[in-house]
């Protein structure tokens, strides 16, 4: 039986105020709280954005936000584990974590997260939360409302257009390019997130059967799927910077090396990073972005709340604020962060859509359509195994 219009109206009338009341309770409880947001602190612009969030929320809802700057998200995970080990099940020191992928999987499996809470956020109505959508799956792991999206990440290469004419757009072409230009390309150490992502990107392109990557990696699957990758990598490695004997610790050291003229190509998990770095004087003006022909790995960055967070309501207010259309438009502004919005454009009203369209452009900032298709992250187990196998093969 189809629901009649009065029935829909009726449920809406009853449902909406209930939601609003709950949310009002959350807002009241959050008043005066200080949310300790544990977020990777390696990007000046993100840090500045978080202090902007603090100013806005202090003014609007009397919620302060303090960034606890991490070098690795796993630090926050370890802290929550330590608190659980010490029996500190309330009043924990971590209120909100910028998280995704393996760290999320680890916390979800160990029952270290509060939630589900996303559906209760008023601004969740702008999200596409249908099963299988980018905001409801994190590295193939169902989110199930345990973390709330806030920014979009895409794996991209940066290159100096003054030094390279046409960048190599497939992994095979990259191998040839490196052979012709020995020592001018490398990737961060695979114990680092970006280094591992580079291997995953190559794996997706080279694996004979891409479907197995969406399942947890079994021994047989892993060997079959990665054989072409290692063959390709063995051929590439001698032509890497320092013959592939040493690797930059992370993508920022790699970016610095590109700025110093040591490398011609670097990589990033943020299409806006090149434009941002040019503005900060950290990359040459001629830096441009390219993605592999078949598209590149993309994922959504989330915020999650630990099960023992001392300021849970404040953390929910922050998560909700991050999803407000005007905040997402502010984030997508290249002068602020330049990270693409996680909201579903079809759910926005005209006014909000216009705000997105009015954003300034930048020659080093690719348009969303230039980035090609978004490839799904493999299951989180692939990343762990890839880094392990890489170390087993190439660390002596």
């Amino acid at each position, binding site marked *: 039986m189809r629901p009649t219009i009065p029935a829909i109206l009726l449920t809406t009338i009853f449902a909406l105020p209930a939601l609003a009341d709950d949310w009002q309770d959350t807002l009241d409880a959050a008043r005066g709280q200080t949310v300790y947001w544990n977020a990777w602190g390696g990007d000046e612009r993100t840090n500045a954005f978080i202090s902007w969030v603090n100013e806005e929320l202090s003014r609007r809802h009397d919620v302060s936000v303090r960034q606890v700057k991490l070098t*690795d998200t*796993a630090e926050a995970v370890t802290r929550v584990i330590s608190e659980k080990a010490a029996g500190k099940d309330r009043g924990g020191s971590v209120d909100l974590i910028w998280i995704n992928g393996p760290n999320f999987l680890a916390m979800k499996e160990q029952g270290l997260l509060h939630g589900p809470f996303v559906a209760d956020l008023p601004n969740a109505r702008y999200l596409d939360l249908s099963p299988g959508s980018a905001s409801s799956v994190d590295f193939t792991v169902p989110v199930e409302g345990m973390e709330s999206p806030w920014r979009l990440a895409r794996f991209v290469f940066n290159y100096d257009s003054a030094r390279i004419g046409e960048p190599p757009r497939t992994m095979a072409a990259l191998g040839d390019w490196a052979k012709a230009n020995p020592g001018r390309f490398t990737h961060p150490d695979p114990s680092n997130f970006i280094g591992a992502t580079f291997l995953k990107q190559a794996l997706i392109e080279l694996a004979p059967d891409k479907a197995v990557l969406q399942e947890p990696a079994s021994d047989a699957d892993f060997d079959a799927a990665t054989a072409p990758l290692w063959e390709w990598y063995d051929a590439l490695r001698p032509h890497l910077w320092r013959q592939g004997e040493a690797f930059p610790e992370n993508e920022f050291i790699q970016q610095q090396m590109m700025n110093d003229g040591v490398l011609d190509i670097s990589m990033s998990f943020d299409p806006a990073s090149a434009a941002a770095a040019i503005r900060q004087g950290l990359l040459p003006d001629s830096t441009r972005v390219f993605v592999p022909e078949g598209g590149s790995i993309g994922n959504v960055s989330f915020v999650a709340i630990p099960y023992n967070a001392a300021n849970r309501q404040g953390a929910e207010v922050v998560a909700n604020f991050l999803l407000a259309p005007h905040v997402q438009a502010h984030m997508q502004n290249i002068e602020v962060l330049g990270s693409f919005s996680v909201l579903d454009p079809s759910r926005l009203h005209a006014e909000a859509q216009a705000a997105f369209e009015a954003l300034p452009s930048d020659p080093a900032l690719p348009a969303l359509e230039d980035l090609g298709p978004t490839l799904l992250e493999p299951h989180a187990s692939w990343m762990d195994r890839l880094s392990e196998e890489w170390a087993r093969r190439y*660390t*002596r």
Partner: protein
Amino acid sequence: MGEALHQVIRETTDGRALRMVVLAIVMLGLVIPIAAGFRETGRAAFGVMPVIGAAEFGLAPWRHFLDLPGVATSLRLSLVTGLGASLLSLVLAIGFCATVHDRMDRRSGGRMLAPFLAAPHAAMAIGLAFVLAPSGWVARLLAPVLGLDQPPGLAIVNDPWGIALIIGLTVKEMPFLLLVILSALTQIPVRVHMAAGRALGYGRGIVWIKLIMPQVWPLIRLPVLVVIAYSLSVVDMAIILGPSNPPTLAVLLTRLFSDPDIAMILPASAGGLVQAGMVMLGFAVLWGAERLMRRIGFWWLREGGAVHRPSRDCGLPR
């Protein structure tokens, strides 16, 4: 009389109270947290960490740690860079003191060393990398002369042997040991001993080695232990200057502890115990070297070496 007695009693109880307070602070602030951390690390190293669902006591984490690719290289790198840098710093500091001591008073020495001591280790390492790296200042100065338009592909920093790390650690530890030796020297009648040694026909350097250093050593032993412990376990400088694949043990452990796969905490804890054991080994090496030097030193002193060869300084006809 009663008043004075009361005073004395109060002072002794005050003294005892103060001692208790200090003891309590040391226990609560230092010993207990370290002991607790040590206990938990030890349990995790043997597979017991209930929070992450590990409850099976056994040697699995040790096996996992020892099976890590490149772990033997990491251990060797840590030992070579840590002990190498400590030895180099000590030798340079003693040599420097021996040559310039009487031309430098402690206060001006302290002033000169202050910037070296105040600069954080990581800042010093980054500065050194700025200067030395293939894209650093030295290369930039030489680039127009040599006609380079790209940095040369040389492994100067992050070299696989850890030489850049040894240099970086030495730049930082040498001034520290120098300051320690300079302040130790104020507690020794250096001038008198120097005059006595010279009167017996010893050269300046020999007097330093035979008479002054044996007195300085007990005063600087503890700081040298500190330098060894630090150099063997440093993380920040080793990331910036040290090799990366594999890195030194301390960096390897840092990576394991921040691995997204939280089960890696177990082998990382086993590695943490290895790291502690390595520092103990460093201390043992120093203790052994001290014993050996004492034997050699006594033998050398009794032989009297230099007396038979009158040096030019003492003005005797040859």
